[in-house]
């Protein structure tokens, strides 16, 4: 059995940033484990630009963005293993991994950072009726074929789902000479970034139909066509009279991402049923001591910039955990998604041991225009407002972030002797009901 101070699982943007920031914090014994043939994760197949606008204030492609971190990792001499799959993690941070050269590996880590990212939802998980021919791809799989293997998934394409990957692939396939006939979206809005709707669909005259879904797939060998229909806005069920057929040889599904937490579950980590990722605290530590997590394994992000930022928190705190085992108690505050908010990450804050500032990430449930995000802290009966921000537009497709200073949080609570105990304190983020406030 070999030992490392920190083992990072996954070398996508989350793993790379976490490793780099742990190193910067003073831990030198770090191992990154990557299952693919190179570092960088999915960024390597995202050859479009738009990465790093916030983090580097530069417009980079996916591989360029990854390279910046990969270089840092290599400069620092951080160890990594490629083509290596982690098979198991225990709550005692023992990792079983495997590769061709070394066979089965047993690695003991003082701290683990989970950065496995997410996977795509499939046709099966949304139960589209019809036949089961070749020519049905998840958007990310198609992206890998086009950008990394140099093969086209097909010529006449329909895309279901207007999330970012769906939009990006609409443009990518168009540029490669395919005919992208339409993008269908079940919801009345896109869950992708506005800039992608403009730059990937509108610029190429690809129609986007909201409130529409695929009702049937045709074809025995390859896809020969699909039926699609408008859905009832309320129950999301297709309206039969609106059903139409369209011929195509390829169907791309961009119907959502699921954090990949099979390993986390093996380690006994508590999973949030809304985010499908581990419950984490302000230091990105999971419910199992010494196991940290960041990036899409925790909750699905839209911008890699946020993944990097969040992962630095994980890396830094994993390093602190390794370097000083001092435990000092703190009150526990649970974050709560209030009115209009789907979830808040982190789920737990320890105000007395948190860093100077934390970023809360959250998603809203619907489109809200010109409304306030309110934050209160306190007991259920006695919440005190500590912060509010006005946002011109909030949409489920665009993750919201709020920075909070430690003093802001501490001000809202009575620091008493209840340290370490769950005092029932809650930090609630909600959208102010319209009309509640008239000033401004």
């Amino acid at each position, binding site marked *: 059995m070999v030992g490392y101070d920190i083992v990072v699982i996954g070398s996508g943007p989350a793993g790379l940033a976490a490793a780099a920031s742990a190193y910067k914090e003073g831990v030198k014994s770090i191992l990154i484990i990557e299952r693919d043939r190179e570092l960088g994760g999915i960024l390597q197949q995202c050859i479009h630009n738009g990465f790093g606008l916030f983090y580097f204030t530069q417009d980079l492609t996916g591989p360029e963005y990854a390279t910046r971190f990969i270089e840092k990792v290599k400069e620092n001499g951080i160890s990594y293993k490629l083509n290596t799959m982690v098979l198991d993690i225990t709550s005692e941070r023992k990792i079983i991994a495997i590769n061709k050269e070394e066979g089965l590996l047993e690695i003991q880590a003082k701290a683990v950072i989970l950065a496995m990212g997410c996977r795509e939802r499939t046709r099966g998980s949304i139960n589209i009726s019809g036949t089961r021919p070749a020519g049905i791809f998840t958007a990310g799989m198609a992206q890998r074929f086009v950008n990394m293997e140099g093969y086209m998934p097909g010529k006449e394409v329909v895309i279901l789902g207007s999330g970012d990957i769906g939009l990006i692939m609409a443009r990518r396939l168009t540029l490669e000479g395919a005919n992208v006939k339409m993008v269908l979206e079940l919801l009345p809005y896109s869950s992708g970034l506005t800039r992608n709707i403009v730059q990937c669909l509108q610029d190429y005259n690809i129609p986007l139909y909201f409130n529409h879904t695929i009702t049937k797939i045709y074809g025995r060998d*390859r896809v020969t066509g699909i039926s699609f229909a408008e859905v009832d806005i309320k129950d999301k069920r297709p309206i039969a009279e609106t059903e139409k057929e369209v011929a195509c040889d390829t169907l791309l599904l961009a119907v959502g991402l699921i954090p990949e937490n099979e390993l986390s579950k093996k380690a006994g980590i508590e999973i949030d049923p809304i985010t499908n990722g581990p419950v984490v605290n302000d230091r990105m530590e999971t419910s199992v001591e010494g196991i940290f997590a960041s990036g899409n394994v925790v909750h699905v992000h839209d911008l890699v910039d946020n993944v990097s930022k969040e992962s630095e928190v994980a890396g830094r705190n994993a390093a602190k955990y390794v370097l000083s085992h001092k435990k000092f108690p703190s009150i526990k505050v649970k974050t709560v998604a209030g009115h209009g908010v789907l979830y808040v990450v982190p789920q737990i804050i320890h105000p007395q041991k948190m860093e100077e500032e934390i970023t809360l990430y959250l998603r809203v449930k619907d489109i809200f225009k010109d409304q306030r995000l309110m934050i209160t802290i306190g007991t259920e009966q006695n919440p005190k407002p500590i912060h509010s921000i006005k946002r011109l537009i909030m949409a489920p497709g665009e993750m919201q972030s709020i920075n909070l200073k430690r003093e802001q949080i501490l001000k809202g609570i009575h620091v008493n002797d209840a340290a370490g105990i769950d005092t029932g304190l809650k930090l609630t983020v909600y959208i102010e009901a319209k009309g509640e406030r008239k000033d401004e």
Partner: protein
Amino acid sequence: MYDVVIIGGGITGCSIARELSRYHLKVCVLEKEADLCCGTSKANSAIVHAGYDAKPGTLKAKLNVEGNVMYSRVCKELAVPFKRVGSVVVAFSEEEVADLKVLYERGLKNGVSEISIVNQEELRALEPNISTQAVAALYTKTAGIVCPFTLTIATAENAYTNGVNFFFNAEVKEVRVLAAHNGRFGFLLKTRVGSFESKYIVNAAGLYADLINQKIGGEPFSLIPRKGEYCIFDKDQGYLAKTVIFQVPTKMGKGILVSPTIDGNLLIGPTAQNIEDKQDTTTTEQGIQEIITGAKKSVPSFAMQKTITSFAGLRSVPNTEDFIISADKRVKGLVHAAGIESPGLTSVPAIAKMVREILEEEGLRCKRKRNFHPYRQPIIRFSELSPEKQRRLVRQNPNYGRVICRCETITEGEIIEAIQRPLGARDLDGVKRRTRAGMGRCQGGFCGPRVIEILARELKIPLNQVTKCGRASYALDGKTKDSGLEEKGGWQ
């Protein structure tokens, strides 16, 4: 000249092939698809029934009970995972309890052992997640679960090892009955891959057995496709059923069941709908709704978002209401094994034996081989080995150190073996059915590109010639615009 040509590479045809491979006979199997197990055998409930369903005196009743008993040995010889998990038929009212008693009596008449009626409490002990509405159940310990792909492929592999020839993409286009003279008879079968002469034909063509029979001129029978739709769930839902959970049967079949699969998933279904088109394996919104509603009645707590996939299979329902296993009355030398609907999978070991006996009665001389080898080596399942064995295996063959399918932990070594072994995989579905790569929760999202690559490499074909399931089911189109550079010698 073959002694016997078997038409159909499903579980029935393959089991008959294996049975005949015990004797000094020249036998071949003609399969119209590119692989084994592509029709009814691939999409069913995957259950080895106890045998209380069929009417006493029918072939179904007799062969079910016989087949069930034979399963332990067959699966042991072929190294096919098989578990006798037992089954319960759940009653939700006192009237249905009366139906259970009828089934119980029938089971006794059919010769089913270890059968009893359990009360609500006993049922809950067996099935902690059963609906609170369930009042009693018929419990049989001998029912089991098996993977029909593994069983069919294993059976065929073993038949092949014992000398049976297999031909794929070999749809029988025409059958000529050669002139009978001097008491001899025979057939000429024409396919795309060649012509075959044979003394006997076994018609195990599944749903198409009636059409094959028509081509040969046998006494007419007809088969109705009866569609059954299913949903399969993530392994984390597998705990919800310990036994095969049935409801009280209706005229159309055994109703909606909830069952664990041999690989640990949860299976619900099927619907039962008579259709016309023998190729219509489409799933429908109504069908899926029907099985969800039906399954929730037995086990209310499965999570729909944990669906891995849905699929439909077609049962071949004979107009005679019983298996058609007999020598044709019009055409000498033609033997049918048709209309093998439920409990067909259970019955096949007994069906194979019966078909061999019929062939003997029809004059086929079956002389036992001394060197028949009943055992088959399974494809190594890396994830099921002990760490020590895993270590040793990777040292011997590093391909076992590369995990290709992360959901099911399938290594490159396993996939290469699945392609290279006799009657090996030729397409994505073939790899999936032999190794489970792509059968997990991400449905090939991760391993798909890698499996395509391995298939292309091992079969020495370009990537875009790899198919999902033979024919023209190409997984990919041509190359991208820029990759033309590679063909000119790559980047300099």
